[in-house]
Every structure is written in structure tokens, then in C-alpha cells.
């Protein structure tokens, strides 16, 4: 039992379960108004009905497509522009002010503009997710290259390595660590972009459904959707972490006994 309780995920699950039970009890005895905070059992019933009736699937598909497409395109653009800016001074001159400006503002305020430009369907949601992710990754790559260990660059150069070898042996692995470090945040940003885009104007998607639940004062549906989005983001977090551990095995592999 003690060994079981030592596991982090067990302690976290038990803590969440405890909170849910307290909430259920307080809601049932009327201490908290079920209209505003329905008990977890009611929220669970709404989530189950959303799946059993199949109503949620089209919304899930829309949000997932926007988030994943935004994540992939955002990663690609962030990496390409980050490398270009770090290696070509002219590109840095052109891109850095724009990126700094985009980084300084809450980028979700661009959502209405994307709706005007791209309409209320999928492209405007993807565009918002792309902007959120690309700026984050741009700075991860840009700073990753700028902060590359100069000793490693000198080492490879003294071994006879040219520009391509440096890129392959030093810059790309070094930047990979930075990008993977930001991957979990990027996953969250991609979902934020997709949901906020749907919140502003859409015909389907979890954000659209959330807007509908809020406008009809349906707290159970609102909470159910919030928990659903949390669950999916956690699932993608786990995927991102597994990718990080696989690609950065040199960092994570436990150290064996070191001899003198």
C-alpha cells in the first residue's frame, strides 16, 4: 500500500478524487448552488450523453483538426523562420521586430481579424493556432541557436567540420532540445487558438459548443466541455512528453555508476 501511495500519479488521482467527492457532497446538500456548479456526477452524465448520442464527434473533429493542423504548420514555420533569422542577419532584421510585436500582445485578439479575412470555417481557427504556436517556436529556435555552446562549435571546427557538419552535429540537436522543451506549451497554445477561434465565430467545434452552453446558462455542459478539453490536452501532453523523451534520450537516460 505504501509503495502504491509513493507513485506520483496515484497521489494526484486520489487528490482529484477527494476534491470531486467534496464538491459532490457540497452540491447535493445545497451548500453550493447546483445551477452554477452542478455536482460532478451530473457533469459526467452530460459528457457520457454527448458521446452516446454522437453529437460531440463533429465538434471534436473540428477542434482537433484546427489544433493539430495549427500545431504542425506553426512548428514548421517557427523552425524555418527561427533558423533563417539566427543564421541570416538580414532575415533577423526583417523578422525580429514583427515577432517581438506578436510576442508582446495577447495574440488571441487577432481572432476577429482572421474571421474577417478567412471566414467562419476551419481556416480562421487554424490561422490563429498557427500564429500562437509559430511565434513561440520561432523564439525557441532563435534563442536556441544564439545560445548554442560555443565550445562545441569550436570543437567541431577544430575536428575539421564545416557549416553543414556544424548544422547537423551541433545546431540541430541543440535546437531540438529547445523546441521539445516548448512542445508541451505549443500543444496548449494550439488548442487555445482553435477553441478561441471557435468561440469568436464558428458553426462547429468545442469552442462553438462552449459558447452555446454559456449563452444558454448550461453550467453542466460548460463544465463537461472544459473537462473534456483538459483531458484531450493532457493526452496530447503525454504524447509530446513521450516524443521528447525519445528524441532527448541522451538527456533522460539515467546515469550508471561513475568510476574515477
Amino acid at each position, binding site marked *: 500500500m505504501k509503495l502504491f501511495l509513493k507513485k506520483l500519479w496515484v497521489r494526484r488521482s486520489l487528490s482529484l478524487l477527494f476534491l470531486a467527492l467534496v464538491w459532490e457532497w457540497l452540491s447535493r446538500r445545497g451548500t453550493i448552488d447546483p445551477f452554477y456548479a452542478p455536482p460532478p456526477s451530473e457533469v459526467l452524465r452530460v459528457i457520457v450523453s454527448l458521446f452516446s448520442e454522437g453529437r460531440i464527434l463533429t465538434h471534436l473533429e473540428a477542434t482537433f483538426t484546427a489544433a493539430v493542423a495549427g500545431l504542425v504548420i506553426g512548428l514548421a514555420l517557427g523552425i524555418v523562420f527561427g533558423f533563417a533569422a539566427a543564421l541570416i542577419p538580414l532575415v533577423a532584421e526583417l523578422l525580429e521586430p514583427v515577432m517581438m510585436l506578436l510576442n508582446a500582445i495577447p495574440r488571441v485578439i487577432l481572432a476577429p481579424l482572421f474571421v474577417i479575412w478567412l471566414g467562419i470555417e476551419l481556416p480562421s481557427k487554424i490561422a490563429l493556432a498557427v500564429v500562437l504556436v509559430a511565434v513561440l517556436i520561432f523564439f525557441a529556435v532563435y534563442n536556441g541557436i544564439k545560445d548554442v555552446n560555443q*565550445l562545441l562549435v*569550436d*570543437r567541431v571546427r577544430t575536428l575539421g567540420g564545416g557549416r553543414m557538419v556544424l548544422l547537423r552535429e551541433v545546431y540541430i540537436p541543440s535546437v531540438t532540445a529547445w523546441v521539445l522543451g516548448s512542445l508541451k506549451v505549443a500543444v496548449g497554445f494550439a488548442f487555445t487558438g482553435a477553441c478561441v477561434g471557435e468561440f469568436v465565430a464558428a458553426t462547429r467545434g468545442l469552442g462553438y459548443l462552449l459558447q452555446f452552453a454559456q449563452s444558454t446558462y448550461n453550467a453542466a455542459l460548460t463544465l463537461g466541455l472544459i473537462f473534456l478539453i483538459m483531458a484531450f490536452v493532457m493526452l496530447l501532453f503525454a504524447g509530446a512528453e513521450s516524443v521528447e523523451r525519445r528524441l532527448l534520450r541522451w538527456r533522460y537516460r539515467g546515469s550508471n555508476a561513475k568510476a574515477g
Partner: protein
Amino acid sequence: MLRVSDLVLGYDEEPVVDGVDLEVPGGKFVSLVGPSGSGKSSILRAITGLLTPRAGRVELNGDQESSGFLFQDDALLPWRTARENVALGLRIRKASKSSALSEADAWLNRLGLEGFGGRFPHELSGGQRKRVAIAQVLVLKPKLLLMDEPFASLDAIVRTRLTQELLTWVEEEHLSVLLVTHDLEEALTVSDTVYLLSQGPRARIRNAYAVSIPRPRDVLATRRHPSFAPLLEQLWKDMFAEVGPPQQAPLK
């Protein structure tokens, strides 16, 4: 093997190094010592091509590939295993992956790291990482070794062992060596010639000392050779003439 003539380094009006001349004849061990900030490491970086001199000449008998550079930090790629790090230089020189890796394994075995080839640098001790760094250079069979305080970060026991192993290897293979160090005893123990740099800026070679202790040398026994102590005393005197004598009064 290596001749440096009238070398000037630095970007400001007042150069760090101003008119340095030194020579490393074939098969000789030469050390460069001097006060902190006198530009010892910069001279080595200029020889390897990592630093562009403001003036002067660096003449290498052979191309840049015939020299190997051992850094103060081990500077191993953290995402490559020990054997991949050792094989890197061979891979850059277009050796096939399998032959580069088997050559790397052979060198790791030679340096006492059998079975450690699959480990990443963070899984090795400081001494083991330094051995990997040495293997990374020696696998390329350089004729000239350039070393910038390679063992400074190691404890005294590991440092003495590695110095002896490297010295034996250099003597057996008749390699030429230029060692930059702040340790005067170490310089005299291993070298045929020791150059003393003056205090910077505008550092120059103040003096050259010939060390005529016979080879092969033992790093501990060499310090008991009759000519060692007088040479060391002279070197310290000249060093203090540059930086000032040690303070007699306790520090406040």
C-alpha cells in the same frame, strides 16, 4: 613543425599579444606559461584558426588536419555517445561509419574505457570524459598536439595519471606538442622548452627555458632531477618580475 612569427592579437588599439615568436620543432614538447590574461589561450586559438590574427604568421609543417586540439573543457557533444564522439573527426574526414566506430572502440579500449563506449558524456566521470576527449584527438593521428590546460579541472590523482599516460604516448609516437598551462611545475616536467609570456596587454615572449632532463620521463621522478629545482626557481623569479612578488602581509 610549427613556427609563429611576430603574432599580434586583439581588436582594440592596445593588442593583447604584440609580436610573439615561438617555435615547436618536430618531436619536441613545448610549453607556454605566463600570467593570467597574457593571451596564452588566444595564441593557441590563433594557431588552430579559431581566431584571426591582426598581424604575424603561423606556419604549420603540414596542413591543419595534421594537428589536434585538446581543450580545457572536454567539449564533448552531449547527444552523442562516447564512441560516436570519438568517431566524429573520422566521420568528418569521410571514413565509413563502421570503420570510424570500430577505430573509436579501439582507442577507447586503449585509454582504459572498454565497455564505456555506449555511454553519453553525462554518464561518465570527469576523468573518463577527459579520456574520451583525448581519444577524439588521438584517433585522427595528429603530428602536432595543441593543448590548452587540458587537465586543469581534474583532481590531482587523475591529473597526474593522465599527464603520465599522455606524456608516454607523446614520447613513443614522437609527437610535437604545444601546451598552454599556468602550472610551472607541470610545464617543466613535460617540456623540452618552456616559453614565458610577459604580463599583458602587449604581451611578448619574455624568456625561453631549455629543459635538458632525459626522456622517457616519469612525471614524479622528473621533479627530483638536479636541474629541475633551479629551473623552477628561475621561472618563478621571472614570473614574479612580471606580476609582482607574493604579498607578505595577511589578506584583510
